[in-house]
C-alpha cells in the first residue's frame, strides 16, 4: 500500500527537488575527487612503478651522492663498492628525462651492457646494445609510441642512434624508457666519468642474521667505505626520491585546491538549501524534531552529496588515469592500475568534505527558532 518514508529517503528527496543545483554541485565535487584520484593516483602509481622496477631487477640498495637527480658521483667509486664483502653486484647508472620527439618524453637510463638489471627485461626483438656504440634499446611501450623497431634509427639530442633491440619491462618506467650505453649518456650530457647512482645487489644474509639487520649493516658498511655517499634501501628510494616527492607534492597541492573548490560548492548548495527551507525547518521543529535531528538531516544531505560526487569523481579520476597511461607524453611514467586503497581514501575524503561543507549550514538550520522559521517567507 504505502510508500514508507525513511530518514535518508527524506534527505534524498530534499536534494532531488533542486535537481539542477544538485547535479551541478555533484559535478563540482566529482571534478574535485576526479582530480584527487587522477593526480594522487598518478603520483602513487609513479612511486609504485619505481618500486616494481627495483624489485624486479633485484636491486637492494642504491648508492647516491646527494639527490636522485644529481649525476655527479665519480664512476670510479664502483671499484671500492664491488670489493665490499656484502656486495654481490654493483652497476653504475645514469637517469635522465629526455625529449625524444616534440610529443614524446621518456625516461632515459644509461647502463653498462653487462648490467644485472637487464636480467629482468625480456628481449622482444633485436639484441642488447654494446658499450661504446651509438645504440639504444627501447621499451615496448616507447617503441610503439615512436613507431620504431629493432634496426631503425632514433635521433637523440641531434645524434643518430641505432635501435639495437626492443624489450618488455615489468614496470611502466621500463616499458616506456630508452636505455643507452652509459658511456653514450655521459657523452650526450658532457658527464664523462660521472654517474647518477650505483645499484647494488647484496649477497644473501648470513644464517641467523635477520634481513632487516643485514640491510642496515650493509648500508653502514657501504657508507663507511665510501664517505660522502649514501646507501639507500630500494624501497625507500622508490618512495623518497625527488621525482616521486615532487609528483606527490604537485598531486596533493593541485587536488587540495580542487577539493577546496568542491567543498565551497557543497557549502554554497547547503547554505542556499537551508535558507530556502527555513520555513520547512520550522515545520519540522514544530512537529517535535530536535535540533540534532535537523542537524543530522542537513548533514546527511551534505554527506550524500559528497558520497555521490565521490563515486562520480572516482569514475572521472580512473578515466583520467587510463588516459594518462595511454598518452605518449605520460605513458612512460604511469600505469593504468591504481591502489584500491586510494578509492576508499577518495570516498572518505568526499564524505568528509561534504560533512565539513554542511557543518555551518546544518548548525544554522538546527538553531533556528521554530516560530521565527515558520514566519520566514
Amino acid at each position, binding site marked *: 500500500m*504505502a510508500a*514508507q518514508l525513511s*530518514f535518508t529517503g527524506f534527505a534524498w528527496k*530534499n536534494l532531488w527537488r533542486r535537481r539542477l543545483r544538485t547535479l551541478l554541485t555533484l559535478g563540482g565535487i566529482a571534478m574535485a575527487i576526479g582530480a584527487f584520484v587522477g593526480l594522487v593516483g598518478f603520483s602513487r602509481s609513479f612511486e609504485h612503478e619505481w618500486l616494481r622496477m627495483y624489485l624486479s631487477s633485484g636491486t637492494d640498495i642504491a648508492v647516491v651522492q646527494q639527490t636522485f637527480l644529481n649525476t655527479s658521483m665519480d664512476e670510479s667509486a664502483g671499484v671500492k663498492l664491488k670489493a665490499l664483502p656484502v656486495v654481490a653486484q654493483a652497476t653504475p647508472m645514469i637517469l635522465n628525462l629526455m625529449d625524444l620527439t616534440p610529443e614524446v618524453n621518456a625516461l632515459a637510463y644509461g647502463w653498462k651492457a653487462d648490467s644485472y638489471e637487464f636480467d629482468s627485461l625480456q628481449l622482444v626483438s633485436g639484441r642488447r646494445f654494446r658499450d661504446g656504440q651509438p645504440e639504444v634499446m627501447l621499451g615496448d611501450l616507447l617503441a610503439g609510441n615512436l613507431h620504431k623497431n629493432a634496426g631503425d634509427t632514433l635521433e637523440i639530442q641531434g645524434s643518430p642512434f641505432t635501435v639495437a633491440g626492443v624489450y618488455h619491462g615489468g614496470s611502466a618506467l621500463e616499458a616506456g624508457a630508452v636505455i643507452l650505453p652509459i658511456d653514450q649518456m655521459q657523452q650526450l650530457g658532457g658527464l664523462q666519468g660521472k654517474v647518477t647512482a650505483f645499484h647494488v645487489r647484496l649477497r644473501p644474509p648470513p644464517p641467523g642474521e635477520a634481513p632487516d639487520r643485514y640491510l642496515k649493516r650493509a648500508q653502514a658498511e657501504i657508507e663507511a667505505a665510501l664517505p660522502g655517499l649514501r646507501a639507500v634501501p630500494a624501497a625507500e628510494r622508490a618512495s623518497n626520491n625527488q621525482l616521486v616527492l615532487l609528483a606527490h607534492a604537485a598531486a596533493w597541492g593541485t587536488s587540495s585546491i580542487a577539493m577546496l573548490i568542491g567543498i565551497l560548492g557543497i557549502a554554497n548548495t547547503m547554505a542556499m538549501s537551508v535558507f530556502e527551507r527555513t520555513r520547512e525547518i520550522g515545520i519540522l521543529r514544530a*512537529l517535535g524534531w530536535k535540533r540534532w535531528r535537523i542537524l543530522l538531516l542537513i548533514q546527511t544531505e551534505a554527506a550524500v552529496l559528497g558520497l555521490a560526487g565521490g563515486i562520480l569523481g572516482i569514475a572521472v579520476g580512473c578515466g583520467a588515469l587510463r588516459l594518462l597511461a595511454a598518452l605518449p607524453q605520460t605513458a612512460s611514467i604511469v600505469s593504468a592500475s591504481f591502489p584500491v586503497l586510494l578509492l576508499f581514501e577518495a570516498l572518505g575524503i568526499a564524505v568528509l568534505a561534504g560533512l565539513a561543507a554542511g557543518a555551518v549550514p546544518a548548525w544554522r538550520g538546527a538553531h533556528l527558532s*521554530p516560530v521565527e522559521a515558520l514566519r520566514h517567507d
Partner: protein
Amino acid sequence: MISPILEARNLCKSYDEGRIEALRGVDLSIAAGEYVAISGPSGSGKSTLLQLLGGLDTPTSGQVFFSNQPLGAAIDLDDYRAHQVGFVFQAFYLLPTLSALENVQVPMLALSRDAGNRAHRAGALLREMGLEDRLHRYPNELSAGERQRVAIARSLANHPSILLADEPTGNLDSVNSARIMEMLIGIQQKRGMTLIVVTHENEIAHSAPRHIRMRDGLRVGGDESRLES
C-alpha cells in the same frame, strides 16, 4: 477542582527588546478534553499565546505548565511538541516534496523506528480524514481543504493529548471551513483530546463551549468555571 492539563501563569511575551508587547500577563487554565476557542483582532496576542502554549516559543516572563510541570524546565520543549501537541496551521505547512502519506509520517520519524508501522498509521489517519484516494498525491495536487485534512492527519500522528489549531479555516471557503471544524471537533470528542482553536471568525468562536477573547495582549473574557468547580 479538575487539574488543568495546560496552565499559563502571568504569561508575558515581548519582541524587539521590549518595544513590542504581544502578551502582557495572561493567566489561563485549560482542562484535559476541553475545547476552547481563542479569538481577538489582529495583534491581540492570540497566536502568540497559542505558540507559547504549544511550546513553539518561550515566554519573556511567566510560565506555561503542562500537567503541572513547567514547560522548558521540567519538560523539554521538543519532547513536549513531539509527544503531547499536534499543530494545525492556517497555511497548512505541508512539505512540498513529500506526498500526503509521507507528510503524515514526518512527525513519526522523530519517535518511531518502524517504517512499516509509520506508513501504516499514516495511511489509517488519512483514510480517517476521507483521503484514501489521495495518499500518494503531493500538496500541489490537493485542494486547500484536502491539504488541511492532511495537516490534521499529520497533527495526530504521534497520539498527542492536545490539538492546537491556529486559524485552521483561514485559507478555506465556507464549505471546507465547516467540514474542517466538524472534523476537529469530532476528533476532540472521539479521542477525548484537548482542542484549542485560535480564530477570528465569530461563528467558530461562539460555537465553542469555552471562548476566550484577547485584546492588546490581555484576556478580556472567558469562563474558568469548569476548572474552579
